């Protein structure tokens, strides 16, 4: 009896990769300590928010790319509905914050024009070829995925190229940002966002019902499919609802602490530009790097750039989570064939270039844009989804499973 109890306890105990968990914790302490010593407490807080977001993205398996692809290929919409719930909750929290008139807070609003349409479309193709969006690329790299490291490298290269070309694209037809909060007030902006999200939800449900005759509401599950709450909290996999709450609160916390919503891809521009600068390239010859914010970021430490600091936290948070789930590098167990490698390169370039032209990725432009009541986020959503349809069609050629 005692022996069987002992065997059961051992079998039920989650196996943790202590090396990865330990290294991630040391990384958090070293980098967090450095930020604390050299910068300001609000950046330490944002580093911590980044860690939590990385854990939520990994344990929630919150992939925008796979959610869109599942709707198209398997006609199942749980992932897509989870994203819509996330946008709705974040809008409900962040639009009142932005509409409160509190000084020092700006939303993720951006102009609408050719640059946005072309950039988000390219990003959509890149999502499916590269295997992830902005957040997806980052958290899978943190979890040790080698293919995604290739995607990230070329994401950075594409982003720098995009930053060099962006002024040319901005000279093409376009108009100034449309901020729904300014246009119709806080209640009106929330109502419009919820109405839009509701219409997309109806379409997603219709697609699923027509294909399967029913709608599987996996996104509404509150409790883990197996295992206890605490165990699941630490080792995954989280129900979508948990990830939705953490991601929405995390974005709101980023806005409250940092003064602007969560973004990811500006840091990729910055890292690439810093490398070029270190190699002797004069970045001030490019108009983008003469604008106030990019110029300030380029001239100072990455440890005072909010997006970089949060990305560092996200990478380490995802690494810790992957170690807790004992799945660090698990996605790299299949050998990378040549075409997949080419897809990672091409996808990464499209992601980077598209993110710069489209004023951000699925986080900075879509998630934060919708939660800021900006019209550009809806254009980004539609164009990136259209691009994603092409990317999904191209995946089999690159030996990528749909």
């Amino acid at each position, binding site marked *: 009896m005692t022996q069987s109890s002992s065997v059961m306890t051992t079998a039920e105990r989650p196996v943790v990769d202590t090396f990865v968990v330990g290294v991630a914790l040391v990384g958090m302490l070293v980098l967090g300590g450095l930020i604390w010593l050299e910068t300001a407490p609000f950046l330490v807080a944002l580093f911590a928010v980044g860690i939590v977001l990385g854990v939520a993205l990994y344990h929630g398996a919150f992939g925008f790319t796979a959610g869109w692809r599942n709707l198209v290929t398997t006609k199942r919409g749980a992932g897509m509905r989870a994203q819509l719930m996330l946008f709705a909750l974040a809008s409900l929290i962040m639009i009142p914050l932005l509409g409160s008139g509190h000084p020092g807070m700006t939303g993720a609003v*951006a102009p609408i024009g050719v640059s946005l349409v072309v950039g988000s479309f390219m990003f959509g193709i890149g999502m499916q070829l590269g295997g992830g969006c902005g957040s997806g690329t980052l958290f899978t790299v943190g979890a040790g995925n080698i293919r995604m490291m290739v995607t990230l490298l070329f994401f950075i290269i594409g982003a720098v190229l995009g930053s060099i070309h962006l002024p040319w694209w901005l000279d093409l037809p376009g108009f100034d940002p449309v901020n729904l909060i300014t246009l119709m007030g806080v209640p009106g902006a929330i109502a419009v966002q919820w109405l839009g999200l509701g219409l997309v939800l109806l379409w997603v449900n219709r697609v699923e019902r027509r294909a399967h005759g029913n709608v599987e509401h996996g996104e509404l599950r509150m409790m883990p499919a197996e295992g206890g709450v605490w165990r699941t909290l630490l080792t995954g996999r989280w129900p979508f609802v948990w990830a939705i709450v953490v991601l929405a609160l995390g974005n709101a916390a980023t806005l409250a602490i940092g003064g602007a919503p969560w973004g990811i891809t500006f840091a990729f521009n910055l890292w690439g530009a810093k490398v070029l600068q270190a190699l002797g390239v004069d970045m001030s010859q490019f108009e983008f790097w003469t604008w106030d914010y990019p110029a300030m970021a380029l001239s100072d430490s990455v440890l005072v750039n909010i997006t970089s600091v949060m990305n560092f936290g996200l990478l380490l948070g995802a690494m810790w989570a992957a170690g807790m789930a004992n799945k660090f590098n698990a996605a790299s167990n299949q050998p990378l064939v040549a075409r997949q490698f080419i897809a990672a390169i091409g996808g990464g370039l499209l992601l980077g270039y598209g993110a710069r032209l489209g004023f951000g990725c699925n986080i900075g432009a879509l998630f934060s844009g919708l939660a800021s009541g900006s019209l550009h986020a809806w254009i980004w959503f539609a164009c990136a989804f259209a691009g994603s349809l092409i990317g999904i069609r191209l995946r089999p050629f690159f030996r990528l499973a749909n």
Partner: protein
Amino acid sequence: MKGMYKRHRVLGILLAALVLIMMDHLHSPTFAFNMGDGHAKASLNQRDASACAPCGAPCPSRR
């Protein structure tokens, strides 16, 4: 998952990232300011409220 990766590679990549971050930081105005150079133009708040997009792009109407 021990067979899935080489420990020295993980440590190597993280150390390389830390070295790059440190090299960047040690050459920055923020570090100079912290070392007592009062003329260094550190930028703890990098937001540009007049920009038209999160990346700092100007508005089309101003181009």
